[in-house]
């Protein structure tokens, strides 16, 4: 490996802060709410049906289910607010995704590292006309970036753009070559 040590001016580097982020589809919030509600309903039903063996505790049986349902309601509310804040961005050389409400996270995937792309959707997402864009990099450790809440048309456009970038860098037909 050859050694290069070019001097960089940090002020002139493209800044992450200045990247323009586009909000994901507003349909993501109700979609997430439905998915989370189903999840918490299942947990509450399990708690309601769980038999209390001790007779003294039997009168308290509904309370764990009620507690879980309330917790679920809070989680659904938080999830709704969080989904409304999600955003993604495309720059010439990388893909950005921002998520989180209390703990915010901005993920950046350089397009040079992209190996292949998938679009996924479950029945609830399909009901809301949404798709997930899953980006994989080298190393076989699973998906590195998952963008949720893209409308079908938007997902197709982003996917086409990423594929065009991949083809340009000659990685589509040589998926395992080192980045």
């Amino acid at each position, binding site marked *: 490996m*050859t050694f290069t*040590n070019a001097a960089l001016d940090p002020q002139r580097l493209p800044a*992450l802060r200045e990247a323009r982020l586009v909000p994901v589809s507003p349909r993501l919030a109700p979609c997430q709410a439905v998915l989370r509600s189903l999840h918490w309903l299942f947990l509450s039903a399990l708690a309601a049906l769980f038999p209390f063996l001790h007779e003294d505790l039997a009168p308290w049986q509904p309370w764990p289910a009620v507690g879980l349902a309330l917790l679920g309601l809070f989680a659904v509310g938080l999830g709704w607010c969080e989904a409304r804040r999600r955003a993604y961005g495309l720059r010439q050389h990388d893909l950005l995704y921002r998520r989180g409400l209390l703990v915010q996270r901005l993920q950046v995937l350089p397009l040079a590292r992209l190996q292949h792309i998938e679009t996924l959707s479950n029945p609830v997402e399909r009901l809301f006309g949404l798709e997930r864009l899953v980006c994989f*990099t*080298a190393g076989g450790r699973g998906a590195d*970036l998952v963008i949720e809440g893209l409308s079908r048309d938007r997902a197709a456009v982003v996917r086409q753009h990423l594929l065009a970038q991949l083809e340009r860098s000659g990685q589509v037909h040589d998926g395992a070559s080192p980045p």
Partner: protein
Amino acid sequence: MSDEARLDDTDELSEWQRLSPWAVLLLMLSGGATLLRQHMPLVLGAGAGLAMMDRLGSRELAVGGALLLFFAVLISLLYYRRFRYRCDGDVLVVRKGLLEHREFKVAARHVQSVVIQQPAYMRPFGLVQWEVETLAGEGSRIALPGIRRERAELLGRRLSRPQYEPSAQGQASEVQTSRADKTRSEPIYAITAKAIVLHGLASRSIYLIAAMLSPLVRPLERWLHDRLPQLDLVAWLPASPWIAVAMGIVAVVVFLAVLAVLAAWWQFHGYVLHDEGERQVQRSGLVHRQERALSLVRLQVVEWVQTGLGRCLGRGYLVCHQYGAQGGDAAESRRFVVPGLTRSQGEALTARFWQGYRPVGSFRRVDPSYRRILLLRHASLLGAGTAVVLGLLVPLPLSPLAWAGLGLLVLVISAALAQLRWMATGWAQAGDFLCIRRGVLGQRTGIFPQQHLISLGLQQSWLQRRRGVATLHLELAHGRQVLPYLNEVQARRLADTLLYRVESDQAA
């Protein structure tokens, strides 16, 4: 081997090859032994084996055993018949499978490491187990479980040279290049007896061995309880119970240390690292010989590791990471490890692996608010743990003063741990390289070229946003490196620089 013989072998590799018949027999025996070892608790546990013998009778068991052996031989023969491999130019083609036929193709340009292992039982037959790992990581390993050593070496050379041309001219150039490799191959590090002993003491084997032996504690305790009264120990045990306990602890630690040194000897006896230009080759092993080749082009991250005891003894080891390493720190034994190094040796080898790397003098520390967060985390965890154990599980009648003293102790321990961890966490930029250090008593320093970044994440909790700090998650080929609680401006600048390095490197 002469050049003519090598040319013959090169031709030979273009044809379909089978495993050695001896290898199939050995694989069947070792597979049977492994199966028996893995299911030993099931067979012998709680007298199940004896009960089954009583119920079935010896004749039925013998018939069953013969049937099992027949099927094992049949499956082995089928495996031998189906398993074949050849080289098509610089592509290794492997066909195998009993019910489902599978064909694997590995192109030389996708190979990141080659491992040759020779267990003791294969040595008399001159056979080795040959493994190749591609850029897809450890899950993509393909093994040829029993071929001649010469053929394994030839395969290794063939796959380390992507420009291979199968013409007569190409063969001649291969012979010339291999001769050049041989003259260029020079040992750059050989382990000494002292280094093995120190590595054994300083490595984490001592904890692993202690964990492995922990199930024996209860039977040993029972045996001592039964046998101790019959032995006249009073004559040679010290009168003071405290001294007796201290001696017992010292004896256990010495026993574990001896086992750890023996384990290091078993694994790293005769360890030699050769520089073969673009390839670094290590050979080691007392009984189970192993040869591992590392392609420097595929090298992603080098980690300098020192345990707490290792720092006292002035020893550490290097772990070379490539793509797709699974199992985290626990799976180090499967990686390219250079053991028993002093700090200067480690720095010299790292500089050799990566031209242009210069050791960093000092590391930048993260924001002091990280220390307060750690103190809070440790104190609440330790405090809650202590309260649950002493208050509920083992209720002790402690006075309020004793509880206060205990609380103070928890606070002091938490503060010490937080301070040590904050001091150990640091980062430094050295030219094109980024170094990230973490740990508490022991320390791990990841060193990697900035353009080797895969992706990054900038994370901020509401508290971090108030304090103007951020946590940087750097995804690398072998896993994640985290820089917690960096000044936000610094974190953003570092993120911008890393992305610029990756993207400009690719554009170049």
